[in-house]
């Protein structure tokens, strides 16, 4: 379980976040939605200990993210931001292998190699494993980063807008793979998504944020409603039913 209690954050004089109290249960896919500047990424980054909050506590599993040993935490919690620019030249396999660092400290045991193979297979990257990252398309590269995070074998995986810059086909494939990671590997996946319909179709729990606060928490059927979305996004939203999922329509 991820427990956030009384968390606040300011950027200079700008009130960015909080106070926030939130519990994300173990297992399944949780989606964070909300308009730009609502604090979704900020909250995710603080949970992932890349940023420190001004007050409050964040616990992942039983570990406090601020005071716990970083290496122990890296075996429980992985976070992937949307921008990953680096000049190092690595193959897909080398990158995914670095995901094992918290366990191997660089010395790969057979068990680590297995985990890398599994992650590559899971994201359908086996045929690309010896390519250098700079030779891949944006979608393939994104998949390689996600494979690295999965190879880390953490209970909790936080992803900041993993669908950014992906076309329809790749976005759907990515969400399917995350769903499978939750169902088959038992990971707890927390994603920030911009498209509420992906949240509606794939998430177990949807958290809607507005102005640095939690506005609504619930199942897709409870949160993806005309009333809630119109209030959260400040624009008229209609919701229709497609198969068993609600679909938001907001184009006119």
């Amino acid at each position, binding site marked *: 379980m991820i427990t956030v209690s009384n968390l606040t954050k300011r950027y200079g004089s700008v009130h960015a976040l909080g106070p926030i109290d939130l519990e994300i249960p173990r297992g399944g896919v949780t989606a964070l939605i909300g308009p730009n500047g609502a604090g979704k990424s900020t909250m995710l980054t603080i949970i992932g200990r890349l940023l420190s909050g001004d007050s409050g506590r964040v616990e992942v599993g039983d570990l406090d993210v601020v005071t716990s040993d970083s290496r122990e935490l890296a*075996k429980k919690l992985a976070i992937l931001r949307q921008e*990953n*620019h*680096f000049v*190092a*030249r690595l193959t897909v396999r080398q990158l995914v292998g*670095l995901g094992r*660092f918290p366990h191997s400290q*660089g010395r790969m045991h057979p068990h680590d190699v297995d985990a890398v193979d599994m992650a590559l297979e899971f994201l359908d990257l086996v045929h*690309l494993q010896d390519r250098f990252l700079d030779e891949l398309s944006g979608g393939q590269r994104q998949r390689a980063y996600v494979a690295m995070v999965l190879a880390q074998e953490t209970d909790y995986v936080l992803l900041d807008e993993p669908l950014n810059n992906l076309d329809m086909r790749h976005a759907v494939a990515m969400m399917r793979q995350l769903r499978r990671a939750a169902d088959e590997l038992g990971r707890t996946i927390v994603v920030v998504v911009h498209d509420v319909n992906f949240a509606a179709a794939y998430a177990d729990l949807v958290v809607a944020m507005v102005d640095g606060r939690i506005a609504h928490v619930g199942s897709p059927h409870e949160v993806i409603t005309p009333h809630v979305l119109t209030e959260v996004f400040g624009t008229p939203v209609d919701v229709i039913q497609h198969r068993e999922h609600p679909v938001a329509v907001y184009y006119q």
Partner: protein
Amino acid sequence: MADVSMRATARASAETSRVLAAFRPRLIGISVLAVLAALAILFYGNPAPVGSRGYWIIAESRMVSVGTILIVAFCHGVGTVVFHAVTNNRILTPSILGFDALYRVIQTALVFFFGAGAVAATDGLFKVVVQSVLMVAFAALLYGWLFSGTHTSLHVLLLVGVVMGMGFASLSTFMQRLLTPSDFDILTARLFGNISVSNVTYLPWGGLVCVVVGVVLWRRRHVLDVVALGRETAISLGVGYRREVLIALTLVAVLISVSTSLVGPMTFLGFVVALLTYQIVGSSEHSRTLPMAVAVGASTLLIAYFILRHVFYAAGLINVIIELVGGLVFLVYLLRKGLR
């Protein structure tokens, strides 16, 4: 269509494994080249009869040059590769942090306050140690100060380094204006890096520092791989990013200060060595790039020294030529690749 992409993929895989498998033979080949160049420097064209006392004296003095070259190559090659990893770029070199300028200002201040005689009179291990300590202390202060603030950015650090470097440079220029022409002449000779000015007493100490720093960096080679992925990924992988960057930058400062104290500033040597290393190795794991940088640095510098000294009889010019070639390569690289 699918078939074409499959074939392209297969070709890419074969290419990758070829590049990665070629690492060991290439490392050995380049090291052999370095050894041959070192032997050539030691024994080629010795005027004294073989086996006589003069022969060995000359060989011994050449040994000092070879040792100096090895230390300089190690410092700049390893220092620049590590610097590139932690600063996440492949263009800047450690000299951007103002090391060259600091060296110049120390030398100039010595002549300015104590006269040209003081420069020669104070030469010795003590001065080298003081110089190195000053440079490392400067770097540690700068990093420590910048990393303790709330807005910690590597770019701010680099920018401050550049500005400090400019400040030091104008301070040196100001003092140089006030020197007598003869003092200025002696000082100028000092400010051009020169492998021949190195002294035998410094070498064991320089070598010892290199070995110690080399061992520490080698043990951290996997951590460096992770740090090179950037702050956020490194933290997610459980690496204390700030601490590792601080350690790495301080070690780089130690290496560069050793080299600068021995032979004076060399701005582009590290850049050229690192660029060649990346081209030869192909991938970026430090278990490959670190040893290759040492081999490439040593063979480049040894061969250049041999050619300039024994073929063109222009040993004093070696740094000038390295800087010229290095600067040209740097410009071409910038124009081709852009600021990435």
